């Protein structure tokens, strides 16, 4: 009782500080927008597109954490494998290197292929590496995840080489003009593909039988077994779902950035992890919001007027991660969770 009373003013001070930081940020954004609305809006659309990719990857982190309380550090590298597998499938097997309606259709097929491949890889990873450690101390699967990350990176080197491999995008390079604001088609495509995927995922988790079993398993594994839920299969399914989203993100990433590299998963994985923490690890909606927020913050910092600029972007983003973990470990939506890495 006494400690609660004593800590109350401190929390008040913290939330006041939080408000001040938030207000400052908003003011900064308005200032930036007022200086050059056109550039600001263009940068914002890039941020939304990147944010959509981060959201897809962050969902994989958050779903796996939600169900077995493991921060799956190999998840970013799974995304990388998705990008490599997708690029090889589209360029080398389907021989598509230019933009045409046919290549767009085959890009959709590539997406399905990469999603299936990543889902499968993630199922195998869970079965071989994590399942046996499910009741072990939390540090054991965590270290295993780091190990799996290295294995996936080395598979990436085998398939892609150790240097960045440039890939051709089959999406149109044109732009859509709204007034004097110019938006690249590829960014629109990313958002247009991501939104239905997110809706589909929400539907699966909220409305289907397997989704209900996922939510039950996330809350209480033993009680779920008592209900007759095949918990092993539900966990596999969760890894499959997370893997599929990472695969989709991988294919889209190549189309936007025009290259594949074996270490792409490390940086993007960390950013997506930051997004997941921002939204509260384990919180699905939070992961999407966190992903978009991080994408926008990154883009604004990279290109909008009055922001520190590209060389500070990583500092800004990981400062956010550190601040979140210290002050709001439950994420921006704030429910406090006890389990931490």
């Amino acid at each position, binding site marked *: 009782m006494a400690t609660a009373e004593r800590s109350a003013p401190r929390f008040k001070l913290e939330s006041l500080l939080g408000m001040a930081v938030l207000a400052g940020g908003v003011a900064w954004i308005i200032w930036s927008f007022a200086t050059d609305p056109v550039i600001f809006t263009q940068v914002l659309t890039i941020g939304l597109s990147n944010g959509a990719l981060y959201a897809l990857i962050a969902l994989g982190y958050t779903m796996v954490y939600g169900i077995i309380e493991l921060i799956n550090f190999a998840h970013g590298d799974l995304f990388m494998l998705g990008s490599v597998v997708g690029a090889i499938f589209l360029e080398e097997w389907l021989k598509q290197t230019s933009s045409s309606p046919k290549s767009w259709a085959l890009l959709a097929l590539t997406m399905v292929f990469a999603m299936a491949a990543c889902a499968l890889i993630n199922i195998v990873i869970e079965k071989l590496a994590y399942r046996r450690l499910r009741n072990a101390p939390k540090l054991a699967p965590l270290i295993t995840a780091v190990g799996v990350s290295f294995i996936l990176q080395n598979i990436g080197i085998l398939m892609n080489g150790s240097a960045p491999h440039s890939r051709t995008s089959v999406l149109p390079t044109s732009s859509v003009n709204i007034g004097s604001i110019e938006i690249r088609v590829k960014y629109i495509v990313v958002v247009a593909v991501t939104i239905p995927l997110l809706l589909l995922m929400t539907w699966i988790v909220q409305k289907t*039988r397997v989704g*209900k*079993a996922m*939510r*039950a398993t996330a*809350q*209480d594994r*033993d*009680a*779920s*077994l*008592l*209900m*007759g*839920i*095949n*918990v*092993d299969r539900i966990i596999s399914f969760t890894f499959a779902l997370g893997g599929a989203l990472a695969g989709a993100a991988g294919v889209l990433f190549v189309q936007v950035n025009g290259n594949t590299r074996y270490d792409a998963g490390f940086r993007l994985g960390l950013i997506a992890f930051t997004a997941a923490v921002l939204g509260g690890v384990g919180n699905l909606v939070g992961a999407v919001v966190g992903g978009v927020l991080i994408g926008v913050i990154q883009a604004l910092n990279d290109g909008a007027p009055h922001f520190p600029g590209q060389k500070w972007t990583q500092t800004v983003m990981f400062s956010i991660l550190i601040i979140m973990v210290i002050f709001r470990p439950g994420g921006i939506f704030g429910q406090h969770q006890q389990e931490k890495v």
Partner: protein
Amino acid sequence: MSEQHMSPVADNAAVRGGGQPPVLTITDLEVYYGNIAAVKGISLDVYQGEIVTLIGANGAGKSTTMRAISGLLKPRKGEIMFEGNKVSGLRGNEVAKLGIAQSPEGRRIFGRMTVAENLELGSFMRRDKAGIVEDMERVFDLFPRLKERIAQKGGTLSGGEQQMLAMGRALMARPRLLLLDEPSMGLAPVLVDVVFEIIERVNSQGTTILLVEQNALAALNIGNYAYVLETGHIGLQGAAKDLANNEDVRNAYLGHA
């Protein structure tokens, strides 16, 4: 160890079940947590239509036995048979499919889901929509409180309501054997009576029940047959009525009456 000389009231076992074989048979069950034995070789039978109670002090191995029956713990030795099927060694979800449901110790309801969703999960294995609706009505009939709380999240219910939800959820599986682990734990005395009344009602509607309780007196009052667990062994067994009058049991579990 030898149950014979410790159980002066154990000789009416022959009349249980009216010549039918038991639905649940546990033989020489041993369960360990790591290297620590929690259950050290117990044997017990549950016959069709009975309420069998398992009483004993904290740490006697009551909940461990229940968890082993449900497949949440793997026995190191011994065998659990249910309706002629070997249950020991099966996983929890496979045991549930055979027709055993458990209302576990600590209730273990899904706190972030509504009362309705919790009950639906109880019927997760079933496909007969009409039967599920019927059983939902039956649960609301037994626990009118749950109907009032139907859209509320499980975690916001009171302890008594959560207990009702845990029992209702187990009933939603339409089990042939219902395991109840400490249904009266942490409940107000008024509610304890209600819960025991409901257990009797469920039993009279045809469900066989294995009941673990610390409230030994109430458990012996509604039980047909009882086993007393003592640090992993079965100390005494007999008709519940007889055990309730047994001097040792009265001294150890029913207060100094």
